[in-house]
C-alpha cells in the first residue's frame, strides 16, 4: 500500500538531513590549520610515490559478475519461497530444474579455477 511508504519517505528525509548537517557542522566548527604535509596522501610518513590509481586484478571484475548472476537467481527465490506452500511438490521440481542449471554453471566456474585467488 502506498500509505505504508509515507513514513519511509519521512525517515529518508530525516536521515539525509542528519547526514548533511553533520558534514556541514564539522566544516563550520572544526579548526582549520592546513599545511602541505597534512594534506598529502598518507603513506606511513614516507614521500608519496607514483600514482594511486593503478589497474586492479581482473579477479574483482569476476567476483562482481558472479555476484550479479547469483543475485538474479536469489531474486527469483524470494517470490518462490513466499508462495511455496501453494505450489507444493510442483514448486520443488520447478526450482530443482532452475537451480540445477545454475549449479552446472557453478561447477564449471569452480573447475575453471575462477574461484581461486592465489593465481
Amino acid at each position, binding site marked *: 500500500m*502506498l500509505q505504508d511508504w509515507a513514513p519511509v519517505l519521512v525517515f529518508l528525509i530525516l536521515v539525509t538531513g542528519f547526514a548533511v548537517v553533520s558534514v556541514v557542522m564539522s566544516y563550520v566548527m572544526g579548526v582549520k590549520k592546513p599545511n602541505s604535509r597534512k594534506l598529502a596522501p598518507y603513506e606511513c610518513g614516507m614521500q608519496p610515490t607514483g600514482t594511486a590509481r593503478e589497474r*586492479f586484478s581482473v579477479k574483482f*571484475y569476476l567476483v562482481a559478475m558472479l555476484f550479479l548472476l547469483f*543475485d538474479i537467481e536469489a531474486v527469483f527465490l524470494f*517470490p518462490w519461497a513466499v508462495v511455496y506452500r501453494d505450489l507444493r511438490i510442483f514448486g520443488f521440481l520447478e526450482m530443482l530444474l532452475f537451480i540445477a542449471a545454475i549449479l552446472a554453471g557453478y561447477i564449471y566456474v569452480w573447475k*575453471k579455477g575462477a574461484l581461486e585467488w592465489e593465481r
Partner: protein
Amino acid sequence: MIEILFFFFAALAVGAAINVLVQKHVLYSALSLIVLLSSMSGLFILLRADFLAVIQVIVYAGAIMVLFVFVIMLLNLPEDEDGADRLRWLKFLGIPLGLFFLFLTVITLWNVERQDIVEAQMAGTPELIGRSLFTDYLLPFEATSLLILIALMGAVVFAKKDL
C-alpha cells in the same frame, strides 16, 4: 501529493539520465545512472509495484552498477584519456541508430490501445508475482536459468583467456 512525488521522481530520473550523457568522467556517469535507477524505483512504488521497486534497487542499483563501478575502477583511465579518438566513427553510426530507436518508440506508442487511466487496485506483492510467475509464466522463468548459465560461462571465458 502523489502528483508532486511523481514529478519529483520523474524530474530526478530525467535529470540523472541527461547527466549520464554529459558527464566527462565515466565514474560520474555511473553514479548518475545509480540515481536514475533509484528514482525509477520511486516511480515503481507510486505505481503500487512494491516488489518491482525493491528488485530494481537490488539487481540494478546494487548489483549491475557495482559491476560497472568495479570495471571503471579496474581500468582506471586517466581523466584526459577518454578514448574519443577511437570512437570517432561511432558518432556517425550513433545518429542514425538513435533516429531508428526514436522511430521504433513512436511506432510502438502509436499502436498501443488507448486505455483510461485506472488507479492500480492491488499492490504488486511478492505473492501475486510468485503465483503468476511459477504457473503461467513458467517457461520464461526456466529459460532464465539457461541465460544465467550462459552468462556464467561467458564471464569466466572473458576473464580467463589463458585457461
